[in-house]
């Protein structure tokens, strides 16, 4: 199945902004984070289709996963 992965802030460095990836059913956010060589403790916010999610959450067909380090400001 296919999901879209979007990266933000310094997670983009040497990686990408957005990529459509083919994954097996049951693959979690944490597995994708590991595959991208991002340390789990560096992940500040996980959004799945614009809603807050967690590293152990499994993705579904067509999901949009957005990964952020801790950011703030405003």
């Amino acid at each position, binding site marked *: 199945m296919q999901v879209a992965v979007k990266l933000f*802030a310094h997670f983009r460095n040497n990686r990408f902004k957005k990529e459509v990836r083919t994954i097996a059913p049951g693959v979690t956010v944490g597995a994708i984070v590991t595959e991208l060589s991002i340390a789990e403790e560096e992940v500040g916010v996980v959004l799945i289709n614009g809603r*807050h999610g967690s590293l152990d959450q499994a993705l579904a067909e067509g999901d949009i996963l957005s990964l952020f380090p*801790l950011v703030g400001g405003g």
Partner: protein
Amino acid sequence: MADRIYRVNMSNLTSTIEDIPEAWAGHGGRGLTSTIVAAEVEPTCHPLGKHNKIVFAPGLLAGTYAANSGRLCIGAKSPLTGGIKESNAGGTAAQFFARLGIKALIVEGKPEKDVLYCINVKKDGVDISEVPELKGKGNFDTINAIMAKQGENTAVISIGPAGEMKMAAANISVKDPEGHIRSAGRGGLGAVMGSKNVKCIAIEADDSSEVQIHDPEAFKAAAKVFAKGLIDHPVSGQGLRTYGTAVVLNIMNEAGGLPTKNFSDGQFEGAEKISGEHMFDVIEERGGKTSHACHKGCVIQCSQHYHDKDKKFLTSGFEYETIWAMGADCEVDNLDQIAEADHLMDDIGIDSIEFPVTVGVAMEGGLLPWGDGPGILKLLKEDVAKGTPLGRLLGSGAAAVGKAYGVTRVPVVKNQAMPAYDPRAVKGIGITYATSPMGADHTAGYATATNIMNVGGSIDPLKKEGQVELSRNLQAATAAIDSAGLCLFVAFPALDIPECFGAIVDMLNARFGLSLTGDDVGALGLSILKIERGFNLAAGMTNKDDRLPEFMAEEQLPPHNVLWDFTGEEIDAFWDF
């Protein structure tokens, strides 16, 4: 030298230096401006009349070597909200005041003569000079004129033409170390300064004296822990320094809470083009500066130098709120146009949240098409700066323009335009907008941190549970941080790192020889909120003013299709303390 209060009476152009009354001694920054306004300003007075007063106060830690302690708080009755107002900014003024031993400068009365004045604040007192040559001048010319006359190392507080014309959206500028501008943006304080014919305040540098610290060793130890917390936390130590405050734009867009097209959508198609990540790339490519401190001792450095296409300096202090307001809210996806507008708004002296949100409402009313960046620049240059009838209307803020154009979707609370987080999708910030005595103000209790960014814990932004308590705790903490004169961004590490919060309390204790606890500091914050609300109630506001506009309960916000669903009773519970 004990700290003192400087008082300037513009009715007879005299000044006095006073001892600090007992009741004011424990206050600084916002706590002091609000306490003085509540004590001395008749709540029902006309904000632009002789009975209003404007108060400038450095924070309790100003002038020390505590990191990020250079915020200047400015308070008065607001011509925009009709209630009490405190707005703060970086720049060099707060530290200069503190070194001169000035706990607050109160400017009162109103001159008979129709001429502009400069208040010169010096070690041995104050003198007031006429500056007719500065009439109509922008903030940059004004700051340059003062520096030319009194030396580059002079702190300057000034208003632009918007303040002179007493527009309700006029702000007050504070010179930064390089002669650029930081703004006390909100609530029309520039109009209050303008109503007293005060074009600028020049503060002499006093490098010979230092702020007295009761226990220097303890202060030094606490200041070290505090600075380490700021540098260690990823938000203050990494994200803000690299991408500026606009780092927040993409996350708000992804979370569906980025107010777009006058608060009719929660996502903007052009978000990437106005994001912090994009700004970083543009600055690098054009040889600007991606990080820059707005005052001495700032370790976060969220400001920057943004250059134009010809690699010439265009603007600094280019903030998320400004970029969002002219960007997503007016659907302009051109960062260069927004940067030019930022520079113009700095120079004219108009709030870069209130003005573009006002334009969004005017776009809804048909004044100009969505996304018309050049049209907005033209309005600034040819109407607002020159004070045409249209310019004066736009300078009166979003609520006034909504009325003039018969628009029902007007995003204001207490007549003040909402900042860059839609309360339907970030419910905690909605409670802050509704209840803050300042009107819709994200800085008053930044619930977005815990709703969206997982800082200080996490609370679901789309649910009501826990939001009132969250907003209350954050509003109290913010009032205390504002009183210390610290940059609000210290809250990110202070919320997550207990030693960092403890270090703030330790610095206050070491500076003044006190034995405050964390709870005392929280209680101070709550008491300031009560003082401010007391003023508003006495000015004629009621709990019905603590409400969001009707459309938010009736128009679903895409993409989550959410409504604002707090009852009045649930909102009023905020004040149960």
